[in-house]
């Protein structure tokens, strides 16, 4: 057959492709990887419902137009953008701030054993660690990641020396701000050498209702015996289309804990690609998502056990959906033929708070080894009426009773964060979300 399929590009796709040559001239680093990534994007276009991995999150529909690429902010714009207080302010021993995808400052002290180079600088100087960027085969071909690679403006290259026990979190604060919607692309590569221990915290913040299009990617490469904790907080602008990707390449006997808390944004998608490259590693990958209004949030996860012993993976995703919002969980655990003794357990639990709320759960197991224990569970339901009645019979209002139940429900996904102060901040944000909801309900009931 020589039937030729001609894809008609959308306005957004055309705009992204057409802006590339001009941007290339000013973006740092070698052209090769960017061109290759753009070619990947050109082959697929913006993913839509016909693409299995994007079946429930139609990016093409969400991005009818491509927002213009954000220019580097000047000093005045930076000051304005950073004015609001970050919920995680003061948590990092060192905090790198980014405005619209550009590094604008570093506060605090870089802990010993750690080196941090802004990505633009690293790309410009041909930093040796960049050879390890984009090397996780599991994530190859991913459109969001390809777009990030093609258009990344800045970010960070973080190196943690072998055996270093980093005292206190390394914090990255990404703020998107401006008078109109813009597109940003930031990239972080963190290489953690053998036996080192580190906590990386990223927050993504945006004010107002603008439909910013943000795309961030964090790559973690963990050497044998490393202990990596990762926390991501999504507080994008209300109208944002926010894509984020975490890749993790885990050496032998490593431990990874990653918790993503998503609260705002019109359409957000967080992707995790984790590969157990060394034997006997452990990963705990969690998500806590609270949605209201017309929000849509997607958590997509691929975990590959590719060594023997296959290690232990635990995934816990908790989603609260109110109003007309919708949530997606797609989780896949792959166990390669030689990854015997793999122990994988994945759970996605959603609570729907309204008639119009929707949740799409798609757990998948691909097991090619014969001596493994793998399980998945996906649940979707309303809050338990019996529990609500019990709490209300003690005088607690319906809204507050629901808040107590919701907080404990999503809190389970947050509680795996070992850092107490950061855990408390995230619990506080959940409580804040619930307070706003309770006030809304009480105001409605009073009418």
């Amino acid at each position: 057959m020589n039937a030729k399929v001609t894809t008609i590009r959308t306005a957004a796709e055309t705009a992204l492709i057409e802006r590339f040559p001009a941007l290339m001239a000013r973006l740092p680093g070698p052209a090769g990887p960017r061109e290759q990534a753009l070619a990947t994007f050109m082959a697929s276009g913006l993913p839509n419902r016909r693409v299995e991995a994007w079946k429930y999150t139609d990016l093409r529909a969400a991005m009818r137009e491509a927002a213009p690429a954000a220019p580097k902010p000047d000093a005045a714009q930076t000051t304005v953008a950073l004015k609001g207080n970050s919920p995680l302010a003061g948590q990092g021993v060192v905090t790198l701030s980014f405005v619209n995808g550009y590094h604008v400052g570093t506060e605090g002290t870089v802990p010993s054993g750690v080196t941090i180079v802004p990505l633009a600088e690293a790309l410009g100087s041909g930093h040796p660690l960049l050879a390890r960027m984009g090397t996780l085969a599991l994530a190859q071909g991913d459109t969001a990641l390809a777009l990030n690679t093609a258009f990344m403006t800045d970010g960070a290259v973080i190196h943690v020396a072998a055996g270093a026990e980093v005292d206190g979190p390394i914090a990255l604060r990404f703020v998107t701000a401006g008078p109109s919607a813009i597109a940003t692309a930031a990239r972080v590569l963190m290489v953690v050498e053998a036996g080192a221990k580190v906590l990386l915290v990223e927050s993504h913040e945006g004010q107002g209702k603008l439909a910013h299009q943000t795309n961030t990617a964090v790559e973690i490469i963990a050497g044998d015996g490393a202990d990596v904790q990762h926390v991501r907080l999504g507080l994008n602008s209300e109208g944002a289309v926010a894509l984020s990707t975490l890749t993790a390449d885990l050496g032998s006997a490593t431990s990874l804990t990653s918790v993503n808390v998503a609260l705002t944004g019109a359409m957000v998608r967080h992707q995790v690609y984790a590969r157990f490259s060394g034997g006997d590693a452990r990963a705990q990958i969690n998500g806590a998502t609270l949605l209201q209004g017309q929000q849509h949030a997607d958590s997509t996860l691929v975990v590959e056990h590719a060594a023997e012993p296959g290690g232990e993976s635990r995934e816990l995703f908790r989603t609260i959906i109110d109003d007309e919002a919708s949530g997606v969980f797609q989780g896949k655990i792959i166990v390669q033929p030689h990854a015997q003794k793999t122990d994988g357990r994945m759970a996605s639990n959603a609570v729907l708070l309204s008639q119009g709320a929707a949740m799409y759960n798609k757990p998948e197991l691909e097991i090619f080894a014969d001596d493994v224990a793998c399980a998945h569970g996906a649940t979707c339901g309303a809050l338990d009426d019996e529990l609500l009645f019990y709490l209300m019979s003690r005088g607690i209002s319906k809204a507050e009773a629901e808040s107590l139940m919701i907080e404990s429900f999503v809190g389970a996904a947050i509680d795996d964060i070992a850092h107490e102060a950061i855990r408390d901040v995230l619990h506080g944000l959940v409580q804040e979300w619930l307070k706003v909801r309770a006030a809304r309900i009480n105001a409605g009931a009073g009418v």
Partner: protein
Amino acid sequence: MLEINNLHVKIADEDKVILRSLTLKVAKGEVAAIMGPNGSGKSTLSYVIAGKPDYEVTDGEVLLDGVNILGMAPDERAAAGLFLAFQYPMEIPGVATMTFLKAAMNAQRKQRGQAELTTPEFIKRVNAAADLLGIPKDMLRRPLNVGFSGGEKKRMEILQMTLLEPKMSVMDETDSGLDIDALKIVAEGVNARRDPEHAFLVITHYQRLLDYIKPDTVHVMSRGRIVKTGGPELALELEANGYRDYQSAA
């Protein structure tokens, strides 16, 4: 205090009628017991008084101090001074017992127009009540009722009753699942609150509980209505003869 007139109740969305023309009065300061066989509607009565949404009241009224509470939400009834000790208290994973107790006490205070308790005052009250009921402190640090034994759950119910200070307490088979020591502790918790201002409606299968909580009145319930009312001697008679006479009479 509590006055139930001609109450008819069916399960919501079903035709099954559970209470029919039930009439009952509990005066201020009175301890009334309801005894009856399985399936006579005792638990349903307690749930309807507390406002559980699974039931539909087709006729009648439930008055608390002269006010019909049937239109009130469960939390409003609690604020009005009603308390239900559950037969099967709920386990609520993730909600710390202390958090729950504080939320409940402050919610009721708020509804009554009182200021929230300070944390030291709250802790003082909880500790005093817990000591009285022999509730160890580590139980208070655990999620509410999660992993508690049957007896511990019932004691936690009495702890809540003590802290929330209701004027009308309905106790749904609080004796079920209790050993004799726990039963005594629970009874002491009730007796400590017995005075001319408070009233109790104690629902039970067995006479045993009534050895420790002496009722003023005993009602026999069968097939959804009160079929006989008498003094404490009625409970002894039931213990000796069973419910057979009343089941056929109803």
